[in-house]
């Protein structure tokens, strides 16, 4: 058996004197496996992603262990992790509008990611940049490469971000709500792009979202995160068929509005679960 590309054990993250943002989270991602991490905003899923990449702000205090591509991540300086990031592991952020440097042409930003990890001749880098921009479905890759980010639409920018994440064929791609900022039609095309690109690269994926419907399109296993803890960890089919935790039941019900009889009120998560206790029984 091969070892997992990502292994998280007992991870906790605390900011200042507040409640832990992440409290004792453990999970693993096997090579090529796609895991969805789902939860509401503030549940600690983005903090988990940043911790996995070693990108937490300085004032965060961490405990536990994170092994990424066979290397420990926590409490190591940027310089030591630089060889790993963008090469073996890459990350796609939520906001395509701000994830690209506004002062640098898009092609150069992609070329930079190659140059950081590979010794390649300039001509070859250029060819590789155009190839990957084409592969992420950008028409006229040469024109896109010569554009500044503000000259591209949100969907185009997110494709560029995907291209930057995949250009070095990483073992694991961490996606932090990569489609949340896009409108629904663009969202669908970016998702199918991610799907095919990940499959082609054979890369594993940790996909973070608050939207079960989005995660269900891409992932085979789902982690449900609530208040900094993982409350459910099961294959997608099992989550959809027989969710165990009341919060998960709420998520599944709200994602399946096609099963709500016409004219009835749409379900909300609060129908199934609230912080004050299990409300499911009261409703019945």
């Amino acid at each position, binding site marked *: 058996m091969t070892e997992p590309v990502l292994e998280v054990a007992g991870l906790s993250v605390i900011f200042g004197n507040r409640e832990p943002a992440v409290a004792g989270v453990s999970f693993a991602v096997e090579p090529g496996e796609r895991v969805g991490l789902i939860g509401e905003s503030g549940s600690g899923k983005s903090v988990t992603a940043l911790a996995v990449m070693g990108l937490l702000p300085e004032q965060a205090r961490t405990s536990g262990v994170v092994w990424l591509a066979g290397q420990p991540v926590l409490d190591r300086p940027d310089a030591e992790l*630089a060889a790993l990031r963008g090469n073996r592991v*890459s*990350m796609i952020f939520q906001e395509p509008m701000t994830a690209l440097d506004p*002062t640098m042409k898009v092609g150069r930003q992609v070329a*930079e990611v190659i140059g950081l990890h590979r010794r390649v001749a300039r001509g070859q880098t250029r060819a590789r940049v155009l190839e990957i921009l084409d592969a992420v479905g950008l028409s006229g890759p040469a024109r896109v490469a010569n554009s500044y980010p503000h000259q591209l639409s949100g969907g185009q920018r997110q494709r560029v971000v995907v291209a930057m994440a995949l250009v070095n064929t990483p073992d694991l791609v961490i996606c932090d709500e990569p489609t949340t900022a896009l409108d629904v039609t663009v969202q669908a095309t970016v998702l199918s792009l991610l799907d095919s690109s990940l499959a082609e690269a054979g890369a594993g994926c940790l996909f973070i979202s608050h939207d079960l419907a989005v995660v269900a399109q891409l992932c085979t296993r789902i982690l449900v995160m609530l208040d900094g803890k993982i409350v459910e960890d099961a294959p997608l089919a099992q989550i959809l068929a027989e969710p165990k935790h009341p919060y998960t039941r709420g998520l599944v019900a709200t994602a399946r509005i096609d099963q709500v009889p016409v004219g009835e009120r749409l379900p909300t998560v609060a129908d199934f679960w609230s912080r004050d206790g299990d409300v499911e029984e009261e409703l019945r």
Partner: protein
Amino acid sequence: MKARLSLAIGLILVGLVLVTALVSLVWTPYDPIRVDSAQVLQPPLHGPHLLGTDGFGIDVLSRIMVSAQICVQVGIIAVGIALVIGVPLGVFAGQVGGWGSELVMRVTDIWYAFPALLLAILFAAAFGSSTGTAMVAIGLASVPAFARIARAATLQVMSQDYVLAARACGTRPAAIAVRHVLPNIAPLVGVQASVSFGIAILAEAALSYLGLSAQPPTPTWGRMLADAQTYLFSNPVLALWPGLAVAAAVLGFNLLGDGLRDLLDPRLKEVR
């Protein structure tokens, strides 16, 4: 609209100073240092001397023109020194954070508290009065302003997603400073450079008025003001020309800086 206006006026005045300095390199109406006792204290606008002559019979317009060279030279070198020292300090402080940042900022605070003119007088006492020492002193005195601006702008850039994304791509801190921070703070630093250019010109005029900068016979506006003092009651107009020149140059660079600042201010951008 107001930004455009001050930008336009600033550009015109700055352009005037630069063109004057360039032209004076190849042509002036008269020799700017030749003493002519037959032409002493000619009135302006009458006769061959457009702005008249001074107490040594030297053509005032020629001196004003040549003085623009010193003024531009001092501005460039002083601002250059301040940029080269201040910006890296500020970027470093903004990027590393923690006690390293605190140390740099406290040192610049102390530095800031030291008056520029006092520093220049000290330098003149230690190394002799020359344009060189004046430029270095003014430049060093301007360092904290650049360090502060650069640090504030760097902090802002470092909190942007594209820096996080760059780190996630494996970009090392030094490369982030050069490739992402510097280009993005350049506009703000540019505004500060323009304002500091004006301050440097004013400081140099004050120093040469006190005799702590360029030495005779090199003409400077400050030196001309000092010379004109002797004739303040008989020929007050002699003090007017260099005074106007200093005012125009300083106003020009300040308006240019203000105009750039307003033009680059993202809050104003949304309104337009």
